[in-house]
Structures are given as structure tokens and as C-alpha cells.
């Protein structure tokens, strides 16, 4: 089986500062991976590079999505191909309602796949269903995109978009940050409901907390710009218990770009 996403020896630099130095990661359909790491380890950079954010100098032996060369694709083409990034800090767009924005996005993606564009009524029917399980009020649709939203509302809005756009690979960048425990549960339930055999997820997080609610198949620890340890869900608990410091020690002496333990293949 071809992997959904395959990354080999990914390096990234911004303003002459090295952020990623040899990341390897392989994700198959239906898998949920978590990438954990301390601040400034390169977690968010990895997420943004997958989504096509400009401004980084990127090199790699290989980065493919569904077998296609991902790095040459424009951000909108990646999104249309099925990559979705739930932003850590969702962006405000004044004057544009959520329903208008999401309909434009959904129709751009549908058009790409040769599907008919949805009209306002069909779209409303579709989105109302999706809103229910995220415990969102319908008035939400008439609010301008992310403007004046609380932290919880922003994150729920991201998950709503994911539910509507139905990606093949969802990259969730610190979706747990800024959420209280109740909001976290709602968001986690939403994400869990979106787990499917033909959809993979990449959870990016600093803390183990999120992983108690969304249990991953694989956990990777990103440190100093590369994945230094990979394992099952229990790795998250070890990290929680021991902190990242023990890994830092263990890593010393290993050649960059070499994962310490076997990857999830």
C-alpha cells in the first residue's frame, strides 16, 4: 500500500535559522499520529510546511501526498487534494460570514473534483447537521470569520470547517491550546467523530492532555528539528511523566536525521 503522506529527510530554514533538520514521517490512511515536542522544536513549522506556507527554504529527499510531489503544489491545490490544517491561531476576516466563507471553500474543493457546486440551501442543510455534534448555535453562521471569537469558538470553528471540507489528511496544530477542559472535550469529541478508515490525522501538541481524549495510533517526539523517538500511545505518557529532558540526553551522539526507534511502517 502506498502511504498517504511520506516525508524523507525534510529540512527547513527561515531567516537563516534552521528549524527542521531531517524529518522522516510516514502516514497511511486511517492512522492517527501525534507529534509532540517542547516549544520551538519545529512542530508548527512542520504543520505549516505541509500546508504550503511561504517564507521557508525547504529541501527534502522526498515529500509525497497520495504519491504526488507535495512541495511543488500551491497551498490551494494541497487543500483541494485533501490536506486540511486546523490553525493554532485562526485568522480573522471581517465582513465575511462563516457561511459565505465555508461555502466558497467547499465549492472550490468540489469544483476541483468535478462535482457540482452546492447552492445556499443545500449548503445550509449540510452544515446544520455538522454543527449539531459540535454543539454550535446556528447564529454562528452569520458571524464574521473568527472576529471577536473566544478561544474555544475559534477552535470549534476549525473543527467545523474540517467536518465540512472532509479532508483526507487533517493536520491539527495545537488544537488543545487555550481550551478549558469542557471546551477540550467538545472539540475532542468532534475530532473523534471524524476519524475514519480513509482519513488520517496528524495531531501536533505540546501536552499529553489532548491525547487522553484523542488516542493516537503512533506518537513521535520532535526535538531540535527532527523526530528523535517514535512509539505507540504509551510514549505520550512517558513524555508526560519524564518531560522532554530525558530524551535530550538520550539523543546525544545520534546522527541527525536518524530516528532512534523504528517508525510506524
Amino acid at each position: 500500500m502506498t502511504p498517504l503522506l511520506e516525508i524523507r529527510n525534510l529540512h527547513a530554514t527561515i531567516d537563516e535559522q534552521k528549524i527542521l533538520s531531517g524529518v522522516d514521517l510516514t502516514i497511511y490512511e486511517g492512522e492517527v499520529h501525534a507529534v509532540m515536542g517542547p516549544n520551538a522544536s519545529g512542530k508548527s513549522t512542520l504543520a505549516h510546511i505541509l500546508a504550503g506556507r511561504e517564507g521557508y527554504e525547504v529541501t527534502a529527499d522526498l515529500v509525497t501526498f497520495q504519491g504526488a510531489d507535495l512541495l511543488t503544489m500551491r497551498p490551494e491545490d494541497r487543500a483541494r487534494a485533501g490536506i486540511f490544517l486546523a490553525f493554532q491561531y485562526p485568522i480573522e476576516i471581517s465582513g465575511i460570514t462563516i457561511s459565505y466563507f465555508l461555502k466558497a471553500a467547499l465549492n472550490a474543493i468540489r469544483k476541483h473534483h468535478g462535482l457540482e457546486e452546492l447552492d445556499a440551501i443545500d449548503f445550509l442543510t449540510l452544515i446544520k447537521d455538522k454543527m449539531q455534534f459540535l454543539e454550535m448555535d446556528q447564529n454562528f453562521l452569520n458571524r464574521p470569520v473568527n472576529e471577536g471569537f473566544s478561544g474555544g469558538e475559534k477552535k470549534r470553528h476549525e473543527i467545523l470547517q474540517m467536518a465540512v471540507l472532509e479532508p483526507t489528511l487533517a493536520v491539527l496544530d495545537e488544537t488543545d491550546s487555550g481550551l478549558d477542559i469542557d471546551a477540550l472535550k467538545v472539540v475532542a469529541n468532534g475530532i473523534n467523530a471524524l476519524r475514519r478508515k480513509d482519513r488520517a490525522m496528524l495531531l501536533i501538541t505540546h501536552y499529553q492532555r489532548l491525547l487522553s481524549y484523542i488516542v493516537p495510533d503512533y506518537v513521535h517526539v520532535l526535538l531540535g528539528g527532527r523526530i528523535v523517538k517514535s512509539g505507540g500511545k504509551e510514549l505520550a505518557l512517558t513524555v508526560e511523566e519524564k518531560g522532554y529532558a530525558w530524551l535530550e540526553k538520550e539523543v546525544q551522539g545520534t546522527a541527525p536525521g536518524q530516528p532512534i526507534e523504528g517508525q510506524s511502517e
Partner: protein
Amino acid sequence: MTSRKTFTDLGDQEYKYGFVTDIEEESAPRGLNEEIIRLISAKKNEPEFLLEWRLKAFRHWLTMKEPQWANVRRSPIDYQDIIYYSAPKTEKRPKSLDEVDPLLLATYQKLGIPLTEQKILAGVAVDAVFDSVSVATTYKEQLAKLGIIFCSFSEAVQQHPDLVKKYIGSVVPYTDNFFAALNSAVFSDGSFCYIPSGVRCPVELSTYFRINAPSLGQFERTLIIAEPGSYVSYLEGCTAPIRLETQLHAAVVELIANDHAQIKYSTVQNWFPGDREGRGGIYNFVTKRGKCQGVHSKISWTQVEAGSAITWKYPSVILQGDHSVGEFYSVALTTNRQQADTGSKMIHLGINTRSTILSKGISAGYGQNTYRGLVKILKRAKNSRNYTLCHSLLLGDRCGAHTFPSIEVHNSSSQVEHEASTTKIGEDQIFYCRQRGISAEDAVSLIVNGFCREIFHQLPMEFAVEAQKLLDISLEENIG
């Protein structure tokens, strides 16, 4: 594609309305003197009072100096090199649409003006001004039943000279400013609209202006009178063909609202903006002013200014009647080398008067956008209020936004609020949209439309759609 490139190319838009209609025109010789004014007046068979008024305006104009205070750079205007009168050569005024030159109608169709019978059924009455003579006035008879007069200015001069005599220059006197004086001397045509007491005009009245002949200055004049308790919504749209020389457009619009009357005046202006290097284009120097003469009267200006090399205008309201309301809603877009110096004046004279100014400026390419406003509350205007909101959006790093607000309050019971902000369209915003599958150009259009939303809401439905399309066309091309 880099984002820098996105912003650069936004300025590189092409003008889509730049065709020339090949129709024989009858023109006056270039230049301006009393003889030319007499010629214009004679061609239009005007009554003596109007010729006298034109001549007085001309003599006053000769004593005036061209104002230089606007925040714009431009080449000098040679007033003796302009043709002040030009009209399509037809034997007589057409009686119906069937008699109108089919070439003219085809031109209007290209512009998408609702001039055909079907469109009339859709409820729009159009008074189209082609160069200096009003070509066809539609829907007039139906309106006449309600006592509404909607016709070209020339026709009003013939049919309703008393009304013209009473109101012309009553809001914008010919002494008001250099360009108003020039217009008063040489104005060629325009629209006239009279709504009798208690009548609510059932359709949106619409004029479409178009400049066709080369080197022609267009000096139209519009006069709208709303009698007590009446209501009218008036739409004005403008385009001009591409020419490398600049053309002067100096119009005057006067609105008069009596007790409890309401006038809503909407403009979508898309005159030729000049080419990418800033050659050619329209100098759009316009005086627009409304007088809320009666108590509880209301005047609203809404404008979408997307064209012209230079736009220089301040649609204003004199709030004379107690409890009267003045509003100004504006979107001004400048791309390439376009410059706009625009805003509003709200002069509060009556007690408990209210005014609102919402101005949205968008600059791209090398475009320069200036908001200039005056809010003046006089001593008698107790308990008056003004709210001003002034937002600027910058696309790229070579354009500019400027704000010159003036506030004068002469009593202690009034309230004035002024809010202003300048934002740059964010790469974050564009990336967010693109990550959702929306293309870069659609993302820019989406963000700009969001920025203008409050203003578009003020436009009549059809016009709002047109305005949105216009901004899309102006911004969308050649990105990516």
C-alpha cells in the same frame, strides 16, 4: 508565486469598458469664451434667465484661481483646449427607443445598462446621458401619472423653467468653487427629478453617464427636488472609453429635501482610470451637495469610486432642518497610478441633527487614497451628533492612505465621534483562505469585499452586485 508578486500585480488591472462608439458628433470648437456659452445656450434653446446665469457664472469663473489644496499630483489643465459641447448628429430628439441610433443602443448594451424594454419592465427608469445630450428617457409616462418629473436637464429647462429657475444654484451657487463655476457656465445636460408632496417614487431612478468624444469635458448637472413627505432613490453609473489624453469631468449635483422627505443617492463610478503608467484617464472633479431644508428630512449619499485617474469630490449635506439626518457611505478604490481625494462635509445648522460618515479606502499598486472630511456643528444645532468611521486597506507596499479630518463644534450639547484605522491586507489572511482551497485572487476579492460590506449594504440590491463585480474585476486580473 510570492506574495510580493500578488500585491504588485493587483495594481495591473485593465479597463474593460474602453471601446469607442463611431457615431458622427456635432461639436463646438475648442476653447471657452462668452461666444461658446451663447452657442451652447442657443443650441439648447434656453430661456434668457439661464443664459444670463451662465454668463454671470463665466464672468465669476474668470476671476477665480484653480484650487491646489487637494492631495493629488496632476498635469495642468488647458481650459482653452477643451471642447465644451458635443452631441450625436441626429435630426431631432427620438420619441421612443425604436428611434434611437442602434449603435448607441449597442454601446449601452455592452455597458450592461438596463435601457431595453425588458429591463424597463424590471422596474428601472433610465435617463442615459451620452456625451452632452440625453438620448432616451424611459418610464417617464408611468412616473408622470404620480406627478413625478424625471427627465434630462435640457428638457426640464424647456418644460419646467420655473422649477429650474427656483432651484438651480440654490445648494451649490456658481460662486461656490472653481469647478462649480465652470460647470455653471458651460453645463451641457444632466438629469432633473421632481417628486411631489407625499409621493414615494416606486422605482429606482437611474442615470448612466458615458463620455465618448475625445477631448470633451463633460459638465453635467443634476437637480433633485423632494417635496414634503416624499421619497426617492437615485442611481448614477459612469464609464468612459480609453484615451491617452486626460479628460475633465466637472459635474454638479444638487439635492433638496423638504420636510420629512428622503433622498437616497447612489453612485458607481468607473470612469477610465488611465493606463498602468498613469497616462490618460478622467479627472473627476465633482461638487455634490444636498440640503436637508425641511424638518426630519434625510439625505444619504452612497458612492463606490473605482475609476478615474483622479477623483476629487466630497458629497455633503447641509442639515438645516431640525431633526434632519445626513449620511455618507463610501468605498474608494485606487490601483495603478490612480489618486482619490474624497470624503464628506456635514454641516449641522438645525437642532437635534444627526450625521454618519463611513468611508472605506482601498489602495493597491501605486494608488493614493485620501479621506478628507469636515464635520461642523454650529451654535444653534443643539444636541446634534456625528459618527465618523474611516478605514483604509493597503494592498502592497507602494500605495498610500491619508486622512485629513476636520471637526468644529460650536455648542456644548453635541457629540462627535471619529474612528480611524489603516490595515494591510495580511498574508496570514490570504494563506488561511488558500489553505481552505480558495485561490489567491479569490481570497483577495473575498477580503476586500468583506472590508466593503457595510457600504455595499447601503446600495440597492442590483447595484451592490454590480459594485462587487467591479471591485473583483479591478483587483482580480493577472494575479497568480
